């Protein structure tokens, strides 16, 4: 079995106000697979995502991507890693520069990552995610949440990434639109072999999309393992509480009975 694409080991982050956002967090992501990170507010899942993306520097611990240690490296030396690790953020309304068209924003991301792609290439990528060229030249405020998330996915894919961090990427969408975007993410993974770190507080979504799951609470990893195993037989008390509380779980129980 080959080494995981991303391995996070014993990462610690304490914010200046004293909050311990990450308390010896460890997990691994294999190429082409999806790791779900679930937790409630304050669990540290967002901080963890930001550390993987290089937006937050851990106090200690190691983050190894494709065999290369990321922690402690100078910013400029990680350019190719930045190109291969992209993000789809939560809020579609603010994930694009309001003063630039979608095409311009995507071209900006390509430029920053030193990716060679012309306008035609960008339009083609947008079309593959379901955005017509007529919409590609629009400004963010002219598009709906679902459309913007598709654009965000296109922006991430344009650099040819191997790992995409989806930070609550469907949480702000209506459920009917959420299903479309989840399907799109699945297709992209099937066709391009992209790995996902999928962060969400919505357990039903994570159960659907993740191969492996990490459950976080107050900065610590409470439980981790294959998604099916965790849902079928949660070992830890917190995990059980979490699973029992979801309306979907109750819905399911009603279904069975």
């Amino acid at each position, binding site marked *: 079995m080959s080494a995981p694409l991303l391995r996070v080991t014993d990462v610690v982050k304490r914010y200046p106000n004293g909050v311990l956002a990450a308390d010896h967090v460890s997990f691994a992501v294999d190429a082409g697979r999806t790791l779900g990170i679930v937790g*409630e*507010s304050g669990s540290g899942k967002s901080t963890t995502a930001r550390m993987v993306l290089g937006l937050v520097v851990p106090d200690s611990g190691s983050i190894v991507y494709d065999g290369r240690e990321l922690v402690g490296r100078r910013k400029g030396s990680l350019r190719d890693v930045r190109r291969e690790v992209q993000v789809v953020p939560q809020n579609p309304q603010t994930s694009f520069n309001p003063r630039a068209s979608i095409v311009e924003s995507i071209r900006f991301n390509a430029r920053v990552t030193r990716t060679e792609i012309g306008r035609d290439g960008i339009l083609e990528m947008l079309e593959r995610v379901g955005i017509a060229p007529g919409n590609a030249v629009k400004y963010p405020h002219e598009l*709906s*949440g*679902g*459309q913007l998330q598709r654009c965000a996915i296109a922006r991430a894919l344009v650099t040819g990434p191997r790992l995409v961090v989806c930070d609550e990427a469907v949480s702000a969408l*209506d*459920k*009917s*639109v*959420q*299903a*479309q975007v*989840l*399907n799109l993410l*699945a*297709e992209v*993974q*099937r066709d391009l072999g992209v790995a996902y770190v999928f962060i969400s*507080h919505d*357990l*039903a*979504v994570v*159960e*659907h*999309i993740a191969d492996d799951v990490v459950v976080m609470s107050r900065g610590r990893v409470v439980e981790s393992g294959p998604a099916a195993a965790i*849902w079928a037989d949660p070992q830890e008390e917190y995990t059980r*509480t*979490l699973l029992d*509380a*979801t*309306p*979907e779980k*109750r*819905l*399911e129980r*009603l*279904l069975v009975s």
Partner: protein
Amino acid sequence: MTARLEVRDLNVSFRRGERVISAVRGVDLEAGAGRTLVLLGESGSGKSVTANAILRLYGRSARIDGSVRLDGEELLSLPEKRMRALRGRTVSMVPQDPSAALDPLRRVGDQIVEVLGLWGVARGNGAARRIAAGLLERVGIAEPERVLRSLPFELSGGMRQRIAIAIAVACEPRLLIADEPTTALDVTVQAKVLDLFAELQRANNMSMIVVTHDVGVARMIGHDIAVMYAGRIVESGPMEQVLSAPRHPYTAGLLEALPTPGIPRGELRAIPGRPPGPGEAIPDDACAFVTRCAFAVASCSAHRPRLEPVGAGQSAACDVIDAPIATAFSADTAVVA
């Protein structure tokens, strides 16, 4: 203390510059004493506008037509002064964002005491504080004194929402309207808050209207459901019945779009397209769902279907479907989606 809310032909429209935006059209609702009606819909469906309009929170910025009767009293024609007397006491609202309901600069205790004074529930600081502590206990807050002395930012989201609920039920209203009451909360807190609503309802025989986009939440808290789309009710009826045997393609679509376990990745039954946004113009002479509907036929674009009873208290606004649509939640298969 019974409450019977009857809404008939409610229309709410707003003026935006030169345009008139019709947010709610022809809505009929009922909420019985001790029962909860859930308004289910996505963004732009008009569900929040309906809730706000019942309380007449828009003032002059909206035009509201129709009838809203609470125990026979017509609310829409009341003078504002009388409406103000009703708000908070007889008809109360729990807002979506608990942080917005509380003044961040003042201690929780002071805010509750002020509200109690305004509503004439308590005279004098001492009595008011005792009542406030009692209210917090009622919503399951373990150390009411400590919470009363706190500032809102020192408390968790769940705690703030409980405080908002405590304030809302302080005067034992006959009707409580909750707008997305659990959206801002963690899942474990959500469950407790929903239980709290149920408990309060039992204790006071309170009617409730809960606005939500989450089917799971709807099912946990509601007796009856009204599904809204593009400003209209497209299906309504008893909760279990509507969810297990939907008669409108949109309702079925919403249920099918949920990532229930067992559906392989990439094969969620998404509803194509997207719901009309708030402010989008919707033609009145066709079914608003036609562009996204898997069952649409030619006549759907020519004529707007009316909400008609389909049996056992359920109503649906669809001219094509004449039997329950099968979903993952169906009891037995009928029409295959």
